[in-house]
């Protein structure tokens, strides 16, 4: 019998049990359409206590920000403030039906309008839509807007989007989804986009370029203004992947650098929690050129009001919108959290976030540079990459270092990204970690390096103290078990 950490909820079922009670029916029954009714329903039958114990025990198996350090590069695992959770749960927000008439949703609409304005101000964009549900959806919106902009001008020649080879996988995937061809650009020896290659690629078939600032290596591109100029000169538009905004707030506004559009990740920069895989929120900011094409609806002031009356807010579809990206208006619950976060930080707090995020990353970099190879060893932004291997030790990889970190109660950094650095480990501490935590991480990384030299198997067979050991991922893909329930009777013939 295979052991398990925790039984499946189905395995705890006892026929006839239920975990929640509802009031009795208080109206007469109506006839049911007998031939349309299901005859089997395979869901667990457990008590509330069983449910609580099960999920509480499952929660104990997770590492989380609230458990320990989580230096996942490009994910910005900063502290998720608890007041944000209370704010999102206020009944006027949590219990507000999305089909409420605008007049009855003025609190929610005012919040969204203010968030649109604040995000625009932080990044230097004239208009913002909160519609996209995640960063990838924001990217998709941005590229669709670029597409529609060119078509609207009558230009049908532009079929390509330039993407650096260091880009996050969502970038080229987005390009394909939007019907463009992704043209990959090499990086130069500084880790920046190769300007020669870029200039050679710029012609009138280029619709635009996607780039992350700072780069996915955690570096401010030395020649970002040249990059933007090259693309603009050939008639293309510039899209900024805003995943790394934590390094830019109060330091530079992408809109002022010349970007036409960018997406924000509220679940990175603006502290909304990652939730084990979402929900996120990926608003897009644009300049006046792209404003008519924003995904909708967006919140506008419908009536300016006066000294006695507040403004009246309403939902509007932009005149040449690329369309609706999801039902309703975006992940509103995340808008509330981000609004609360920005409101509490204010102008000085927002600036401090970036300053201390960048200080923390540089501190770790200088302390580890003699133990691990740092391929681009100059002042970094909010994250940096080091190589997770040793010249004088065979067969120890970034993966092994990552798994060994788990034994020390630390979540591994991002592995094997960006692809242009061998055995990449991308470390992003964020501004919410204190010096003692960083010093502990530095000590642990040094200890692991020493272990690699003295007893490398300790790394290769790690983790030792996590709830499970390394998993057989080949078996998972070959013997696909995606559901623990047997087929129902009516499917027996399939």
């Amino acid at each position, binding site marked *: 019998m295979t052991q398990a950490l925790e039984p499946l909820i189905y395995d705890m079922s006892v026929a006839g049990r239920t975990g929640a009670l509802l009031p009795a029916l208080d109206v007469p029954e109506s006839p049911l359409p007998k031939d349309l009714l299901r005859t089997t329903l395979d869901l667990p039958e457990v008590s509330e206590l069983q449910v609580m114990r099960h999920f509480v025990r499952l929660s104990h198996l997770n590492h989380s920000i609230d458990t320990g350090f989580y230096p996942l590069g490009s994910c910005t695992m900063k502290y998720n403030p608890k007041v944000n959770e209370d704010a999102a749960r206020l009944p*006027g927000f949590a219990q*507000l*039906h*999305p089909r409420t008439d605008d007049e*009855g949703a003025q609190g929610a609409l005012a919040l969204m309008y203010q968030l649109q304005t604040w995000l625009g101000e932080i990044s230097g964009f004239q208009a913002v839509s909160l519609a996209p549900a995640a960063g990838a959806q924001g990217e998709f919106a941005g590229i669709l807007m670029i597409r529609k902009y060119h078509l609207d001008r009558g230009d049908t020649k532009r079929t390509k989007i330039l993407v650096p080879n260091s880009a996050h996988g969502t970038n080229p995937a987005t390009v394909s989804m939007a019907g463009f061809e992704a043209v990959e650009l090499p990086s130069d020896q500084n880790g920046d986009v190769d300007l020669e290659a870029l200039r050679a690629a710029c012609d009138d078939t280029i619709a635009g370029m996607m780039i992350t600032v700072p780069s996915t290596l955690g570096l401010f591109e030395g020649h970002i203004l040249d990059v933007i100029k090259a693309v603009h000169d050939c008639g293309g538009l510039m899209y900024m992947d805003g995943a790394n905004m934590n390094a830019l707030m109060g330091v530079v506004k992408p809109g002022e650098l010349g970007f036409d559009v960018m997406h924000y990740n509220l679940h990175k920069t603006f502290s909304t929690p990652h939730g084990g895989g979402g929900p996120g929120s990926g608003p897009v900011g644009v300049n006046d050129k792209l404003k008519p094409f924003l995904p909708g609806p967006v919140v506008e002031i419908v009536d300016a009001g006066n000294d006695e009356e507040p403004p009246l807010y309403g939902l509007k579809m932009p005149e040449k919108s690329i369309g609706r990206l999801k*039902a309703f208006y975006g992940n509103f*619950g995340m808008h509330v959290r981000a609004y609360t976060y920005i409101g509490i930080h204010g102008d000085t707090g927002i600036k401090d976030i970036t300053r201390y995020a960048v200080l923390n990353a540089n501190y770790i970099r200088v302390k580890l540079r003699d133990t691990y190879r740092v391929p681009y060893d100059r002042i970094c932004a909010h994250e940096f990459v080091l190589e997770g291997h040793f010249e004088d030790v065979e067969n120890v990889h970034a993966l092994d270092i990552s798994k060994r970190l788990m034994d020390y109660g630390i979540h591994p950094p991002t592995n094997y990204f960006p692809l242009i650095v061998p055995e990449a480990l991308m470390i992003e501490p964020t501004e919410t970690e204190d010096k003692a935590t960083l010093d502990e991480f530095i000590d642990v990384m040094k200890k692991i390096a020493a272990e690699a030299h003295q007893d490398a198997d300790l790394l290769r067979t790690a983790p030792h103290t996590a709830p499970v050991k*390394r998993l057989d991922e080949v078996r998972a*893909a070959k013997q696909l078990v995606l559901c623990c329930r047997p087929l129902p009777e009516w499917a027996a013939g399939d």
Partner: protein
Amino acid sequence: MMMSYIPHTDAERQQMLSAVGVTTIEDLFEAVPASHRFPKLDLPAPLSEMEMMAELQAMAEADEHAGDFAVFRGAGAYHHFIPSAVNHILLRSEFYTAYTPYQPEVSQGTLQAIFEYQSMMSSLTGMDAANASHYDGATSLAEAVTVAIDAGRGKRNKIILSPAINPQYREVVRTYHQGQDTKFVGDGGQADIADLVDMLDGDTAMLAVAYPNFFGQIDDLKGLAEKVHTAGALLVVVVNPMALGLFKSPGEFGADIVVGEGQPLGIPLSYGGPYLGFFCTKMKHVRRIAGRIVGETLDEDGKRAFVMTLRPREQDIRREKASSNICTNQGLMALSACVYLSLMGKNGIKQVATLNYHKAHYAADQINALAGYTVDRAKPFFNEFMVKCPKSVAEINDHLIQKGIVGGYDLGQDYPHLQNTMLVAVTETNNREEIDALVAELKEIAS
């Protein structure tokens, strides 16, 4: 004094700056073009938590929400009872402050919960497998189109959509595919299922219907899958999962893919998001679908464990060849649904669905008996029904809101032939008193 989330003291900052080899924190930004460095941020001054919550409370109080009003509006989002325990689990920070489970050894909580969610959704919909979520029901449907095009090996690019699918979903499907050659047909008028079947041909990749449809009606889908399959296309069914507590699953009707909105399963109304797009499929399509998928395996010690699988489909590996760019999805909402379905279970879900059914039918009977109002009884319905009204829906709702009632949805906004027609939703949260009050007000308005 810095705010509390940034813990550095002045002494620590100094130590760190000198370790890095710079004098001030601003020195760290030399690489940023000087002409654009350190712009002014026109944001308000910081607020304490106390002040912020007071401001938010005032804003929230302005909204006409289900805590203060009797809600009879659905149209894609439903006011259902959420057992307390769901929120308590969601507030466990080991769940909500965790990242995507890329490192499975330290993410078994998230992974097993998603596996259980996948299993429950597969059972509920009568499918073989489910993914870990999409953004919502609308985007799930959009992704189903991508699967159907892929299943047709790119040779078929016609998609037949029932006009009775939620109008917002049909907009989203078009937004998603505006960069492709896909043709969307069928939803321009009032085609019923038989009309849609007539549109099937050798160019059709997919036919999609809703169950219940946007009007609350339940169509008998018997025989539809056979016709769609004969034409070489996929049958995609958009469902309200709450209805599946009572009604036959689309799997039983031969659907290839079942998608829909999981908000009714323990997720608050929250002004439209975050919600939960579920995507369930027959095994034969599982390698085509987008989104994360959790599978069962063993660790080195032979212990059962869970891991994200079929990863090469995803954007970080396939990049420009990935079928979708989806990365972050709605993981915590999948957990919500899992906890809700565990608490309610087999018996509770049937009971909730039954309460919805009978309460909606009681309301329909009472309203239909009023002079000036006619309820559409052409087909069986679940918890929503259409009422032809003696006045405009806007006028009726203006009156109702004064009486503490959020009335039904104005279908005339989306369907020109349905002027003065209100879509009324009734759930287990509406007691008899509330329903009777609605009926009394409707009677009053008509007189």
